[in-house]
């Protein structure tokens, strides 16, 4: 009985965190002079009201699963990636450039696969810089990955304003990718960009699960997180394990990028990651860093995110930023309850 309870505890903490987050959001809304119930209703209706809305939630979930994994995978090895924002941008740029520059006579399947791989690889390498600095030089990965966010924003901004800006539009964006090279949208959702990207993201979560539960690299991640010294004596390379975890996590952002570029926008737009990278943090924390948890949390935050966007139009006193507050409260609660252990304290 006790054992069952203690297994349930993480789940309960997550639920409580979410409830507390919603409560805090309601309080803020009430404070701002809105009726919290109305705000809640607007958000629920905004998230699920129409088939199109539901499709949007699926679209956002496909992004958030990926950025959630970007945080959760490195955390398995005790390193903390808060650079998903920049990794997604770089991945998106790579994806768009690949799709725009591949020979036009390639079969669609090949072109799409190559574009996605380009995104994954670019995102992985980008985040890998911070991972390598941490793993091999001891420089803090949190500082590193956040600096890379700013650099990525500047770099892609420069590229899209200068070299690759389309002549058809005033906006800072690239030319459109050929229609047949985009991800197929599910027809059921009224044109919403719910695409096969969700299946790809789910597959990534499944692979993550298999790796940590069943494989030797997964075991090494765990050993490195819990005790770098013991991992060292056991013959595992702490530095390389951390690096690859960081690389793999960052690479997951490539999937988020592909969902945006090939699934929704059809091109690269300046600053198109819009905070999804940062949302990966609450997703990973609420999901307790576990694959199944991340998937559920991603859907929740996707609904929250899409629902909150309705506030911009339908509420006068609060905006979509309310979702951010809810997310922050969730993080604070979960973090205060759960004994998350990152590899802090032993950096030199």
């Amino acid at each position, binding site marked *: 009985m006790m054992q069952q309870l203690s297994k349930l505890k993480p789940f309960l903490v997550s639920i409580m965190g979410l409830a507390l987050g919603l409560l805090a959001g309601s309080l803020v809304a009430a404070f701002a002079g809105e009726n919290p119930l109305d705000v809640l209703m607007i958000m629920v209706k905004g998230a699920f009201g129409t088939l199109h809305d539901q499709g949007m939630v699926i679209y956002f979930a496909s992004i958030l699963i990926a950025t959630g994994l970007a945080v959760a995978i490195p955390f398995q090895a005790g390193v903390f990636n*808060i650079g998903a924002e920049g990794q997604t941008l770089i991945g998106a740029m790579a994806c768009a450039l690949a799709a725009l520059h591949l020979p036009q006579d390639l079969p669609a399947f090949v072109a799409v696969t190559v574009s996605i791989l380009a995104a994954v690889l670019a995102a992985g390498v980008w985040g890998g810089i911070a991972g390598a600095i941490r793993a091999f030089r001891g420089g*803090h990965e*949190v*500082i590193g990955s956040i600096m890379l966010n700013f650099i990525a924003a500047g770099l892609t901004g420069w590229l899209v304003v200068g070299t690759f800006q389309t002549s058809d539009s005033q906006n800072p964006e690239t030319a459109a990718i050929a229609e047949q090279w985009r991800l197929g949208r599910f027809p059921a959702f009224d044109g919403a960009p719910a695409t096969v990207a969700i299946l790809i993201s789910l597959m990534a979560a499944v692979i993550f699960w298999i790796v940590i539960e069943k494989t030797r690299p997964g075991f090494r991640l765990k050993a490195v997180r819990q005790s770098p010294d013991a991992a060292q004596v056991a013959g595992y390379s702490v530095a390389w394990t951390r690096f690859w975890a960081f690389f793999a996590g960052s690479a997951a952002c490539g999937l988020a990028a592909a969902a945006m570029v090939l699934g929704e926008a059809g091109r690269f737009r300046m600053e198109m990651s819009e905070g999804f990278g940062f949302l990966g943090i609450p997703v990973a924390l609420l999901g307790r860093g576990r694959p199944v948890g991340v998937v559920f949390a991603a859907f929740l935050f996707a609904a929250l995110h899409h629902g909150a966007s309705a506030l911009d139009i339908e509420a006068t006193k*609060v905006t979509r930023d309310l979702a951010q*507050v809810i997310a922050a409260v969730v*993080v604070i609660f979960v973090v205060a309850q759960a004994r998350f252990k990152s590899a802090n*304290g032993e950096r030199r």
Partner: protein
Amino acid sequence: MDSLSLIELFLSALRFAAPLILAAVAGLYSERSGVIQIALEGFMLFGAFVGATSAHILGDGVAGLFMASGFGMIVGMFYGVLVLKLKADQIVAGTAINMLAWGGIPVVSKMLFDVTSNTPALEASERLPNWVPIVVALTVVAVTYVLIQKTSFGLWLTVAGEKPEALRAAGVSPAGVRWIALMISGGVAALGGALLSISLASSYTRNMTAGRGFMALAALILGKWKPIPACIACLLFGVCEVAQLKLQGVMIPGFGVVPVQLVQILPYAITMFLLAGVVGESRAPAKLGQS
């Protein structure tokens, strides 16, 4: 370049570096006492917002500074509740504070001013003159230096981060010292943020700290957790910001106009460079992150 403009250049670099210097000193209090301080960015944002808002409402820039650092202390205490009382992971808890600032400020801003992205522009009389950031930053550095070198509290602070057991055996609670350190940390970092919005700019704008909290942390590490070297490291970023202003739109023969976005990358790229090159070698307080 003649010497007068060199001095001018130095002073303006110092002015730009001031918020960063304060943030670095704020990080110093926390980290020397043994608590990792990733939340500087959040403290600064809160400070910038509360400072500009109070200065606007009260019509006085100095009042803005006081309100900001007072609020910063409260946020610092809240961080203390998370990491000292509830023993939350310091890096994740710090990130949570940052998220609260990123998400919470626009909501409050919307309530107060009906816009999410900025506070109303301050009148010239509500802003603080140019010399204020320099004086405040240098004063705080000097006081910190004296505090750490000369007083018992300074000794407590540094022992709390190196060998808390020794402090406890001497009858002083390391946790108590850390609480105070975090309070100071929040207050000082928020002061830095407030200087940003009240003196360097004339209002709060969304995410105006632009990663300065993290750069300050890098500068602190580069300065080996000591006030004066950290201050000098921050000055490097100040120079960088001045250079950024001067470089924008400049024609470089054979390259063309220097693009804004690339110039803006400069401080971040330097931070990365330092992180990879020098920072890994420096020695952190022994118990950093283990409180």
